[in-house]
């Protein structure tokens, strides 16, 4: 440990988290693209859900908001993008924009309702908001297709050049690009004064108020940002699968992404990324091998995580990284 009066920051270059995030995503993407060319449709869906997990991490991992209704942001954006596409807006980038705006709006609404409280009332409100959205999606079947799903979503070509096909190459690369940008932006965002303050609020909200922070508006804004990310995920899913169903706003979806987040480790973008990847690949393999009983395995996994690694799979990795970094300092 250095005795100097001016300690050096533990990690040197300011852009390292962004750069390593970008490299990791490009690397994983390349593995997916070249080694599993037959699984691109699955991997594309995986990316859509991964964005939802990242979005959930922003409110649950960084702000400590317990929510079982996060699919609302994702689903509303998926429907918005799908409806826009069916009604003639077919440019994929524009559709992403639609999803982004819809997700943000839904995020702000959810946030305004949910973050008024903490603890159990908060959890229950999140469930209620999510179920309300699901009931509406079913009821407004003239708009959403209800139980039949919203189909006929045929987006145009990306930049007018690359069309979406059955093999999902375009969809995969397009989604990967969005994930890359989102991850880099979020890496920056969570280390910003705003992001740091959110972590502070999660740690101790009274302390935060005692340094002069008005918590509620901040949490609502964070929910908006989270909604934007979820919205991108929803729009991507709508664009790449061409169908939006009630499952995209369902309680199961909300619960599943929460499970993924905690599996990986809430409070780290890396944790969210790892959790989303591991869970979905695991589910994909186990469910394909035995569609009857995969739930039991997921349940056991979940209990195992809570008992043995409550801070997620990423925690030991992060601890190791910190230790190495500190060693470097000395």
């Amino acid at each position, binding site marked *: 440990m250095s005795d100097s009066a001016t300690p050096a920051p533990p990690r040197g270059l300011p852009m390292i988290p962004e750069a390593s995030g970008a490299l990791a995503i490009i690397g994983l993407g390349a593995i997916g693209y070249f080694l599993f060319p*037959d699984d691109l449709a699955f991997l594309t869906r995986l990316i859509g859900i991964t964005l939802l997990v990242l979005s959930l991490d922003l409110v649950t991992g960084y702000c400590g908001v317990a929510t079982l209704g996060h699919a609302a942001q994702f689903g509303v954006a998926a429907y918005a993008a799908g409806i826009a596409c069916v009604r003639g807006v077919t440019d994929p980038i524009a559709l992403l924009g639609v999803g982004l705006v819809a997700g943000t709006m839904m995020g702000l609404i959810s946030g305004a309702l949910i973050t008024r409280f903490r603890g159990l009332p908060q959890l229950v409100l999140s469930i209620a908001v999510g179920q309300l959205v699901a009931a509406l999606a079913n009821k407004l079947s003239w708009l959403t297709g209800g139980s*039949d799903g919203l*189909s006929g979503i045929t987006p145009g070509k990306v930049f007018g050049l690359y069309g979406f096909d059955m093999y999902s190459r375009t969809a995969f690369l397009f989604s990967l690009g969005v994930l890359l940008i989102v991850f880099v932006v979020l890496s920056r965002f969570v280390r910003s004064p705003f992001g740091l303050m959110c972590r502070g609020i999660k740690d101790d909200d009274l302390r935060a108020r005692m340094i002069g922070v008005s918590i509620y508006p901040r949490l609502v804004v964070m929910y908006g940002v989270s909604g934007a990310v979820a919205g991108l995920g929803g729009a991507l899913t709508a664009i790449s*699968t061409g169908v939006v169903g009630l499952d995209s706003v369902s309680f199961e979806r909300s619960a599943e992404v929460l499970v993924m987040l905690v599996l990986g480790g809430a409070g780290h973008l890396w944790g969210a990324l790892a959790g989303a990847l591991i869970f979905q690949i695991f589910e994909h393999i186990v469910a394909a091998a035995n569609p009857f009983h995969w739930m039991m395995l997921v349940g056991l996994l979940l209990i195992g995580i809570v008992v043995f690694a409550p801070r997620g799979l990423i925690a030991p990795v992060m601890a190791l990284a910190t230790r190495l970094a500190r060693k470097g300092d000395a």
Partner: protein
Amino acid sequence: MTRRATTVSALAILCLASGVAAADTIKVGVIGTMSGPYALFGKNFKMGIDAWVAENGTKVGGHDVEFIYRDEESPNPAKSKAIAQELIVKDKVQYLAGAYFTPNAMAIAPLLEESKTPLVVMNAATSSIVEKSPYIVRTSFTMWQNTVPAAKTATKNGAKKVAIAVSDYGPGIDAEAAFKKTFEADGGAVVEAIRIPLATTDFSPIMQRIKNSGADTIFTFLPSGPPTLGFVKAYLDNGLKVAGVKLMSTGDVVTEPDLPNIGDPGIGILSTYHYSVSHASPENASFLAQIKKGGGNVDEVTMTSVAAYDGARLIYKMIEATAGQRDPVKAIAAVKDMTWVSPRGPVSIDPATRHIRQNVYLREVAKVDGKLINREIQTFDAQPDWALSKE
């Protein structure tokens, strides 16, 4: 198309073509409800297909045929599409089959032309599904097909005021439209039309509403599974039957596995359907015997196993006609005027709609030898899909 996209698709076609040429096994992807509340029907898909394979072998003209099962679980169009896509791209299936729910079938449809994969729909019953792709053929039934005879029976039995209660999704809305159109054309009045969300399990309030509407007859459709039993029990237990309100339905509401749960109070319920497990014919007897031989439970048999059995027949025919090559046009052409005798009775594929034309039977729940069955009491011969055909 840009050069890049051309290269990509050329590569793709090449991969696909080589995959097919190299394989002496022809794969058929079956998408069914293998888990969850509707798992009984996924199981029925498998029982029906297994029965066909047991009778006809695993080889067609020197090609091995392999059925791969995937789980659609619930009405989940996004998931079903993903599964279908994976079956096509990864497992390189030449045919798709199954589809319990309409939304799921609708989601799969757009993939068929691009991938040149025929789809044999073995359940999903909304009329318009076959119009979504020229490569779809259906061996199950449609709501219009089964509902029009129901409406005619209602009129004949003296119904004047009918309350319609259907599940709030594609087939339910089809059923509502079919009944309404037929019944009103015959001079009846529909006094109440209720659309019920698929997830509903408590039907008591709905029964009260129907009762207060003053209807003399209820017509209902819900997809077979947990809701149907609840509906019938609510009808019985809220005293509608005692009060003389009649229940008319398609057979989905009184499938044979549910009858023991409904119990004796259900005796007398009328339904119109294309298959009853108790259908008296040598074809049905041998079909049921085959299922038993294959380790299946006859008490679990529903119409979906027959649709799957006949669907497998179509797939074998298509493989034979194309000599194992991927040629959807030829494959569909080979089956679209087929005629045969199914366990459900004489059937044929309507060349114009690629939908099955079949007898629809009026049945009533009856107790025979201590067992509740759907006894066929009247036959409506060779019914087409009334929405698709212009008859």
